[in-house]
């Protein structure tokens, strides 16, 4: 089992690496094309800003590489958003793996509901429909930190609700994405990482 975490200018790479270590899984962090291609599983993490991250990926050809991967790939937070079609964060065209678009929370709706953006903290995930969520209960709590969201669409495999209902996770072919941080989501997050390893 060879697990690779894609190295790029994202913030939570160490956290993902350590979370995998906690569940007894070794991973390597790399941006080397051959190593990424030959991995059994690939994790595409991310905390940061969409356009900066996309530029970085493009400069290194990682955008083309990620799109062409055929093994299971898990995008986390910004990683998931970058796998969508477009992001309203600085109007960034993304990888286009998922057809869903990434939008900014509507400020009027947010203020009306007395909610703060970014969402920081624990929220529930429901309407779970993927082996990624094996052994998890509906409305399990996960840790979220984000100011943009992926709308609900045909690839939605879990939803959450903050300001409005949207995608907590997406799946298409070999590509999976989660908006929350499994590496920081206590036992629930560890189960999701274990499930991804077993896919």
């Amino acid at each position, binding site marked *: 089992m060879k697990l690779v975490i894609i190295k790029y200018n994202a*913030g*939570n790479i*160490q*956290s993902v690496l*350590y*979370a995998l*270590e*906690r569940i007894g899984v070794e991973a390597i962090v790399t941006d080397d094309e051959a190593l990424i291609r030959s991995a059994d599983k690939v994790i595409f993490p991310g*905390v*940061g*800003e969409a356009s900066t991250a996309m530029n970085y990926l493009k400069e290194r050809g990682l955008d083309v590489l990620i799109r062409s991967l055929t093994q299971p790939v898990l995008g986390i937070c910004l990683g998931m958003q970058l796998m969508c079609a477009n992001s309203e964060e600085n109007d960034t065209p993304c990888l286009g793996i998922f057809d869903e678009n990434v939008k900014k929370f509507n400020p009027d709706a947010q203020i009306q509901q*007395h*909610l*703060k*953006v*970014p*969402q*920081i*903290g*624990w*929220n*529930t995930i429901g309407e779970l429909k993927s082996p990624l969520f094996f052994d998890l209960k509906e409305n399990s*709590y996960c*840790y*979220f*930190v984000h100011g943009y969201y992926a709308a609900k669409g045909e690839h939605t495999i879990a939803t959450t*609700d*903050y300001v409005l209902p949207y995608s907590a996770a997406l799946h298409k072919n070999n590509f999976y994405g989660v908006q929350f*941080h499994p*590496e*920081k*989501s*206590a*036992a629930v*997050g*560890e189960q999701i990482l274990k499930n991804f390893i077993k896919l």
Partner: protein
Amino acid sequence: MLTKRIIPCLDIRDGRTVKGVNFENIRDAGDPVELGALYAAQGADELVFLDITATVEKRKTLSELVNRISHHINIPFTVGGGISSVDDVSILLQNGADKISVNTSAFKNAQLIHQLAKEFGSQCVVLAIDTKQESDGEWYVYLNGGRVKTDTKCVDWAKQAVDLGAGEILLTSMNHDGTKQGFALDITATLAEQLPVPVIASGGGGTMEHFVDVFEIAKADAALAASIFHFKEIGIPELKHYLNEKGIIVRI
């Protein structure tokens, strides 16, 4: 729905927890990693590690500790104390901290907040404010662990910091800290209502009812406490069940 958060705070000196804690079910209560892991297992939503190490030479101990914490703890954690530069933060984040908190150094050099937010994102920049209500009724910012008074009002500094990129405010009322008479509801409510970012209330939590009040009346997003957890006056599971019974959304 997004939950309210319960955050135990551990004071660290030279890599060890400071306050006298006594738990039967852990081997070494002075070990921040073991105590933090216990709180995480009990349902703490995040942890704050506040380094009060006096000397610069011993600060290396902190980054090593942070590395150990991030290997063992599966919930987010914030590290604060003595952070005054982008380099300081970079080392802590590289070692696995999710957020850092700045206080005096940010007040003396407000651009630090902007630099940190630009470099690492607002989501990991927590501004800690120690505030005290004076006889004129106003809440002022205090520095250096509450030893130095400023003429700046707490609300003004908080707003400026958020404009510069602070992603959360950790608000400690010096009038309430250590009293166990309840959180500072008025200044917490003022910030929670006026700021677009989450407010973590700290100082004064002594009973479970105090936590209900700080969430319901003051609209705090999170509540932080130290000794009541360390001395087992309130257990995190019982606190969360109590809040849940009172209709406050918490992660159980």
